[in-house]
């Protein structure tokens, strides 16, 4: 719930903030700030309240955002039910988890890799299970869904793989970040051989993930009408940064995508693929991984972002350890708390203040057993 601030409290808060800001301004900077504020106010047609002291924040006069939450389920890697019942049961456990959330999340992000080998039956089975979610579902595609038919079946079930939407003052973008340069034609691979090559995390025959130029152009166009102050949350299956190339914990053109997102005050990227608790910050962009419902990945031998506090090394004797689902709480300022609901363990919350303070505050609990 957003905290309601009465006009008098706001008046004094603004007054204090103005005087505090003025103490740190020299004459030239003052005129710069004043001019910018006036310009922004004129441009956005904001009316000044006669008693308002705010000159810097007038452009923020848009309706106050309210806090909200959404849930996520990701990386279920379904085989047909007759092949493997375990992964099916795990996805159903996650659906059950999310359906029991009270209050219900505004929507549920499905983070990609619904299928293991892109088979139509696998995707249909996944769609059928996700239909029992009470909250609306936003779908994202992963490489395991894609490389049998390059998205044909997925699209027929879930629609376009790249899209955006606005929700309670936040602009959401869903990318298809798992494009790969053609490695299959020269090798005369069948679609199934191509799929199986990409399905191997440590298979080096495949190319590296990329968003690709057409989609980057789409992203620029999509963001044109979005103001710098609007919080932007991007969903990508692969991490939109460079973590560990041999396992495609990597998006080749991530720096180009980051450049497009640079002008916004608050950007959050939520990604799948890594099946682990992973946290990163690059300038204005905060990154969070998602858990898998099927199996956890080990931490990569190098390249792990400095802000990541590892989750516990999963216990192999506990079949669901290191797996789970989770939630994202979006604060009115547009920053998010990321909650990893690890099955059979305490949930881990990575707070916005942890990233905003570059790790100085609210550090998540350290694991007692680290990866080898």
């Amino acid at each position, binding site marked *: 719930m957003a905290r309601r601030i009465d006009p008098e409290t706001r008046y004094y808060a603004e007054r204090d903030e103005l005087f505090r800001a003025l103490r740190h301004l020299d004459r030239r900077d003052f005129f710069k700030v004043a001019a910018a504020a006036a310009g922004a106010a004129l441009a956005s047609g904001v009316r000044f309240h006669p008693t308002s002291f705010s000159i810097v924040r007038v452009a923020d006069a848009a309706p106050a955002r309210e806090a909200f939450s959404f849930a996520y389920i990701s990386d279920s890697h379904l*085989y047909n039910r007759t092949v493997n019942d375990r992964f099916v049961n795990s996805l159903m456990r996650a659906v059950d988890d999310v359906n029991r959330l009270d209050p219900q999340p505004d929507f549920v992000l499905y983070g990609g890799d619904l299928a293991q080998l892109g088979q139509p039956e696998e995707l249909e089975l996944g769609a059928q299970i996700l239909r029992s979610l009470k909250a609306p579902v936003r779908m994202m595609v992963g490489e395991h869904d894609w490389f049998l038919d390059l998205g044909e079946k997925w699209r027929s079930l879930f629609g376009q793989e790249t899209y955006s939407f606005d929700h309670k003052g936040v602009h959401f973008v869903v990318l298809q970040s798992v494009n790969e340069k053609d490695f299959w034609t020269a090798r005369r691979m069948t679609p199934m051989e191509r799929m199986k*090559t990409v399905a*191997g995390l*440590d298979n080096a025959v495949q190319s590296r993930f990329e968003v690709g130029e057409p989609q980057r152009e789409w992203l620029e166009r999509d963001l044109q009408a979005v103001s710098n102050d609007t919080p932007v949350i991007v969903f990508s299956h692969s991490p939109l940064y460079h973590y560990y190339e041999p396992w495609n914990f990597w998006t080749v053109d991530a720096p180009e995508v980051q450049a497009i997102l640079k002008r916004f005050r608050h950007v959050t990227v939520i990604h799948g693929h890594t099946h682990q608790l992973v946290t990163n910050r690059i300038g204005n962009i905060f990154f969070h991984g998602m858990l898998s419902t099927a199996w956890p990945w080990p931490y990569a*031998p190098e390249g792990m972002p400095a802000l990541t506090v590892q989750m516990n*090394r999963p216990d*192999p004797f506990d079949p669901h350890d290191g797996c789970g689902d989770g939630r994202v709480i979006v604060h009115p300022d547009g920053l998010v708390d990321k909650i990893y609901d690890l099955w059979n363990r305490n949930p881990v919350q990575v707070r916005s203040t942890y990233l905003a303070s570059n790790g100085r505050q609210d550090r998540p609990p350290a694991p007692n*057993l680290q990866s080898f």
Partner: protein
Amino acid sequence: MRKTIAVGVTCIAVGALGAALLGSRATAVGTGSGAAGKPLEVLLCDGQTKVQLAADTPRTPEEGRKVADELMAKWRANNPGTDWIDEEQEKHGIVPPADNSDLVGHAAGQVYGRIAPADVVVWQRETLAMVTRGSEVFHSGDQLGSTIGVSCDMCHPNAANTHPETYPKYQVQLGRTALLRDMINWCIEHPVRGPKLADDDPRMRALEAYILAQRKGTPLNYGRR
């Protein structure tokens, strides 16, 4: 078990044929009639693979190379999977065994007398073959005998988080001190859901070889949790 020997034979075959065809006595390779107008037949040293040539084919080094390529392409088509080591290496980047070439020329007791370059090649090739075979099993649910399509690499890409250097160690869940193979078999029975492998099963030996090879350079630290 797959053999590495076939690849070796092929290399020698191409070498011999190429040299013969490219040399001044190229006609000696032809086994068919040399009479005018009759096609010429070139036989690979496997005694089976052959190509037909028009009698008036110019006997030049270029033509010789073409014949050699054609013979090898046919041989490969009839013997699929002969490049399995290279293919598996390209896919999964196997850590190479120690380089022993510095030992060439040294005396080595009863077995070798003096170590020859060929000895070092055999050690390298045979060791790598076993490790590579292990990589194939590690990455294949079918070869592991999984009933649910699960393979080792799904939790352990490049054998990460297998920590073979920590065995033997007491595993309370197994109620005894476990060797690496005990943990492999535990994984095969539970996450992979397949039948246990015998200790001397070639797949078990290859799996152990692969997992250990990927941790080359890591100090042994048995008993470590």
